[in-house]
């Protein structure tokens, strides 16, 4: 008998998913997170799984997604660093890309850089755009900067020079000098973390990596200790922002690789469910406390992108493409000076949380509104960890209801409507970018608050089908179990896409593939690696690129690029010169497949356990109450209905029907 365990740490809960690979038995567990003692939540969950009879020695795979890195950045608790840049460019972090958030405001501001200006030192060195040395870095320049950095209390140094994307010899030379002169300081150089062209983005990515490195290192040490203490021999694997996994050993240096792993594994988990259900185009919706994250899946595969914000900073590494809007379960409702109802972006988060949680929150949130409408409150919340108090919600919404001149339930429905219409903005943008229509999509809601809002959002967005996976509250942990061991490598090329350049392109890709495969081999484990090659191309003169798979020939690559350009932007120009900006290789070793037990489907009508009052569409009416665990495949019922399960509540609005499929998904359709 063998078990696989996936653990994902969120804002409020640590989610555990344990899969028995022999029986297909899937267990889920939530424990409260312990932000003040990171790792204790992991130990607690392991203890409880063991108490349920899970044999630690039988654990063959242990995959973990952690928020330690991202929290370090958001809370600004990372390592004091110094940054060495090319002389003349020491204000790079201050200037960033100039454009600021909220450009309409005279008071707009850029986030404080993670390395303050006084800890940035110029090194006299210069490389040109072709990678030729114009001025080699001298020891004196480095020694002087190092002395100043040490005096400033730096624990680590980031070395990032112009044109290191082309030739990182100067960066490596300076890193070696630092290692020799100051062996106590840790060093990262820009091209080592991610060798992409564009100095600000590359440098920021290296700074983020160094900033979180000591805390991640210490945290991984701790979790590995807890695994040993729990007698789990499987190596610690970490989920990555690219929807894969890596070993803890690699994660200690490749810290940026895991920064957005939480959102990525949710999308990977949704992809696994989508693929098993045979869905083509899926919009995932993960509603947490402060935000709603949406992503597109095509045939179970997520899209990738770069430049995703981490806290206030862009990350240059490829990441599962997710967009966020500022409406979550904890978003606060208020009446503005003109008497108009607003929801978010202010959020009660997980502390104090919604008023009904009774943890000191006094303002009405989306969760309170759902309780007052009658969507929540029919079953347990968060595996029984929270008992919502309706009276507190009523008190919180009273001033809003008074201003709207209505009762609590109708005011609450207004709050939900405003929150959902707010989520629509990001979804519409995402679909417009992808050139897709809502009617082609299935919405897959997950996270604690996704299933209660999913169908309402679908209706607003024009999506006619919603699929709720069996355990939507722990899809991230499921994604962790399903994620492949993965290594991405890249190199900036900046070559014309011409026959003369093809040998250089082919050789570069071969080297990248070897590097990625080598990293996989170093991470150990069984199975064969699958490597895919791609290139980022653009028409000459453009400043943005499209990633296109590389096949056997230059002609095939060119054709693929023109087709991709046409698909993405609605036009292409086969006669225009094309540039190869960068080359990429992705090597992965597939995770063992997850068993999806298929149950026989017996079409039948489900009868509700009882009827409960539900306020929707301006009226209060009876809704059928169902328990998810008691809905066998083939069971059909009509909305309005509420389905309770241990990790969340599903709303089936009026006008929707619902049916459990052979895989245990609840599939809703709009008439």
């Amino acid at each position, binding site marked *: 008998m063998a078990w696989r365990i996936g653990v994902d740490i969120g804002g409020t809960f640590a989610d555990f998913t344990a899969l028995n690979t022999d029986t297909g038995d899937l267990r889920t567990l939530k424990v409260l997170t312990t932000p003040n003692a990171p790792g204790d939540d992991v130990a607690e969950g392991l203890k409880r799984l063991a108490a349920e009879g899970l044999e630690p020695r039988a654990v063959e795979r242990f995959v973990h997604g952690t928020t330690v890195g991202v929290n370090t950045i958001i809370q600004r608790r990372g390592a004091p660093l110094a940054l060495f840049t090319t002389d*003349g460019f020491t204000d790079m972090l201050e200037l960033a890309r100039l454009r600021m958030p909220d450009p309409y405001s005279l*008071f707009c501001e850029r986030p404080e850089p993670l390395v303050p200006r*006084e800890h940035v030192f110029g090194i006299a060195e210069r490389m040109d755009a*072709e990678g030729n040395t114009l001025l080699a870095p001298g020891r004196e320049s480095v020694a002087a900067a190092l002395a100043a950095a040490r005096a400033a209390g730096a624990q680590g140094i980031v070395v990032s020079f112009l044109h290191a994307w082309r030739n990182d010899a100067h960066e490596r030379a300076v890193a070696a000098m630092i290692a020799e002169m100051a062996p106590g300081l840790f060093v990262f150089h820009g091209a080592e973390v991610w060798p992409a062209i564009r*100095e600000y983005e590359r440098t920021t990515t290296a700074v983020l990596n160094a900033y979180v490195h000591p805390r991640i290192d210490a945290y991984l040490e701790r979790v590995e200790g807890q695994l040993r203490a729990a007698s789990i021999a499987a190596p610690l694997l970490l989920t990555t922002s690219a929807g894969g996994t890596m070993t803890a050993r690699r994660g200690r240096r490749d810290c940026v690789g895991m920064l957005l792993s939480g959102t990525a594994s949710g999308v990977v988990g949704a992809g696994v469910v989508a693929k098993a259900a045979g869905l083509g185009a899926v919009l995932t919706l993960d509603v947490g406390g402060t935000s709603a994250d949406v992503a597109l899946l095509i045939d179970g595969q997520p899209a990738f992108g770069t430049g995703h914000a981490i806290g206030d900073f862009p990350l240059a590494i490829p990441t599962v493409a997710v967009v966020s809007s500022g409406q979550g379960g904890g978003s606060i409702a208020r009446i503005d000076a003109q008497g108009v109802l607003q929801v978010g972006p202010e959020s009660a988060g997980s502390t104090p949380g919604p008023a009904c949680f009774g943890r000191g929150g006094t303002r009405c949130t989306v969760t309170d509104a759902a309780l007052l409408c009658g969507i929540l409150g029919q079953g347990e919340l968060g595996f029984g960890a929270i008992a919502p108090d309706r009276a507190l919600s009523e008190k919180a919404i009273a001033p809003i209801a008074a201003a709207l001149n209505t009762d609590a339930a109708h005011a609450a429905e207004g709050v939900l409507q*405003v929150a959902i219409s707010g989520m629509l*903005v990001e979804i519409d943008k995402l679909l417009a970018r992808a050139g897709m229509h809502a009617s082609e999509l299935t919405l897959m809601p997950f996270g604690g608050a996704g299933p209660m809002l999913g169908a309402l959002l679908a209706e607003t967005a024009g999506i006619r089908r919603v699929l709720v996976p069996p355990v939507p509250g722990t899809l991230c942990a499921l994604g962790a179990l399903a994620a492949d061991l993965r290594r991405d490598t890249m190199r900036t090329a900046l070559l014309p896409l011409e026959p003369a350049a093809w040998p250089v392109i082919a050789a570069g890709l071969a080297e990248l593939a070897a590097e990625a495969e080598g990293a996989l081999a170093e991470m150990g484990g069984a199975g064969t690696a699958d490597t895919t090659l791609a290139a980022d191309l653009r028409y000459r003169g453009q400043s943005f690129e499209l990633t296109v798979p590389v096949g056997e020939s230059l002609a095939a690559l060119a054709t693929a690029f023109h087709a991709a350009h046409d698909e993405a932007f*609605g036009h292409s120009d086969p006669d225009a010169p094309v540039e190869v900006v960068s080359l990429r290789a992705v090597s992965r070793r597939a995770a063992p497949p997850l068993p999806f037990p298929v149950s026989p489907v017996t079409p039948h009508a489900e009868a509700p356990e009882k009827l409960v009052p539900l306020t929707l569409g301006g009226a209060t009416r009876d809704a059928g109450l169902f328990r998810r665990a008691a809905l066998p495949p083939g069971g059909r019922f009509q909305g309005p209905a509420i389905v309770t399960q241990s990790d969340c509540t599903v709303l089936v609005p009026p006008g929707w029907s619902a049916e459990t499929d052979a895989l245990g998904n609840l599939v809703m359709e709009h008439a």
Partner: protein
Amino acid sequence: MRTDPVTLQVLRNHCRAAAESMATTLYRTAHSTFVKETEDFTIQLLDKHGKTCAVPLDLGATWYPGVDYEAAIGLVPGGYQPGDIAMTSDPYSGYLSTHSPDTNMWKPVFHEGEIIAFAGGHIHNVDVGGAVPASLSRTLTEVHQEGLRIPPSKLYRQGVLDETLLRTITTNVRVPEQNWGDLKALVAAVNTGERRILELARRFGVETLQDGLADLLDYGEAQARAVLAGLPDGTYRFADYCDEDGVGGDPLRLKLALRIQGDSAELDFTGTDPQTLCSMNVPTGGHPRHSLILVGVYYVLSALSPKITLNFGTTRPFTCILPEGSVVNPAHPAAVGMRSLTCARLRSLVFGAFAQAAPERLPAAPAGSSSIINLAAENRRTGRRVISAIAPIVGGGGGMPHRDGTDGSGADAAYLKNSPIEITESEAPIRILRYGLMPDTGGPGAHRGGLATVLEFTTDAPDATVTARNRDRSIFQPWGILGGRPGAASSFTLNPGAPNEHDLRNTDLLNPAPGDVVRIVSPGGGGRGDPMTRRPEAVLRDWQAGRVSTAAAARDYGVVIRNGALDLPATEAMRAQQAPREGFDGGPNRTAHEARWNADAYAALGEAMAEVPTAWRGRLKRHLFAQVRASTDPAAEVIRREKGFGKG
């Protein structure tokens, strides 16, 4: 309001979503890299009268959230049918497009035979023909030189493209396929808008939608009125200056009397200089709520009320008086291509007037001049002549009530993006020697102005041409308020520090020889509050970060730094000798100019202008400035002596 407060917010979110998806469609399908890079386009969701109800906030420029299409819509001959799409690029018909490269487009949305709304937007075409590539230059004197102008006309009639109009466009521009590609993107955007508005009509019902759109304008108006009601009634007079009214010209004065009464405001531009002989004029047709004039107002409102709704309703409490024949209401055929230079000064003019109404709540002047630097040269690697946008050289924001101005960008320039050095050096024969913040350029103040940006580069190309559009503020500095000092002036220098150093002032065209070093420094932001009251620790922190030198710390702040630490007794002693500073400071050049060109002189200038036809005024101004320069008599006297100019 006709709409309930829940439905209104839901509708507002839906309208915003529709506007964002229009903008995303335009951005995604636009052909030119220029449009994608600069995001020089806007999108509007308009009511049936052509008033803007909603705009996207994440993509595009910030100038037109309150733009009014009504006049231009009415100028299209023959009324509208379903499937029609109209456009204009003529700055003198309907005053919608404000220079010829800007094409505005709109599509009526029909429901059961009635127009219920319009979908609109604009895009800046890289080139529309005319005397110079890209169609813009300060050297142009008539709008006819600024390329093709299309008066309000239908590009599509009932869904059918007007091939003749399209051929006329493509025949008259330098890169026709690019213009057509970008126009097609705009067509796709207004079609998306039409579809989305019809969906809204189905979802909410036509009547609720129409009422809701009207209420959105009322909602925007109510928010703006609430802000105005919170400001003290009164008349606040302010003037600001562009360095030159043309190549090598005289100062260009913009004058504003802001009258706030209750919850409305009048912006009276009487006293503003006559229209210029070059292309710095701002075509408004005298529209009392022209969006281009109100851009500064949008910023002020957003500063006083964060996240305020911006739409046409926002503009209703404001009435602008724009004298005919002045630079803010030029008569045809004055050239208008470089109106963006003047617009930057119009914004600081508005900021200055409001800063008097609410000094405790508003910042000092932002740098107010964002030079767009381009290099044209042959790339040796590829053998091609390339034109590279190097970077916009943007200065800092003004000192704010709660903190220092942002360094190197901010305020009304915060929408601009730079280009990576690595990309620029890969594409153009250029070596950038320095790109960063310039120390000691932020206006000293209790809250310091943001630092200027410096760019220094050299090229080894034999045939390089450098253009620096929108150069200004090298004479008239960004002003400080409440005792704050002005931000440093901008500069443009060839071979700084070398024996052949040369001050290029406001030159906007340069042919450097191989090996020449070009340095451009933006203005800095103005300071706010008496610099002698700035916390010494803040000065020390600036010193540590290289923002303020040891000498400037002592001179500007009275702070003595010795061996890297504050000398507090010496600081106290030094500060004790300083008289407290308060009020406005526009810098020595402004003081000197206003000593010579005092109120009496400008009054005399105004009288002289009133006596001659519009077409003569620019020349008369030039003549009078020359006479005043040549004389030591009071300027007003000199001017009054010159009466009769232009009368034969």
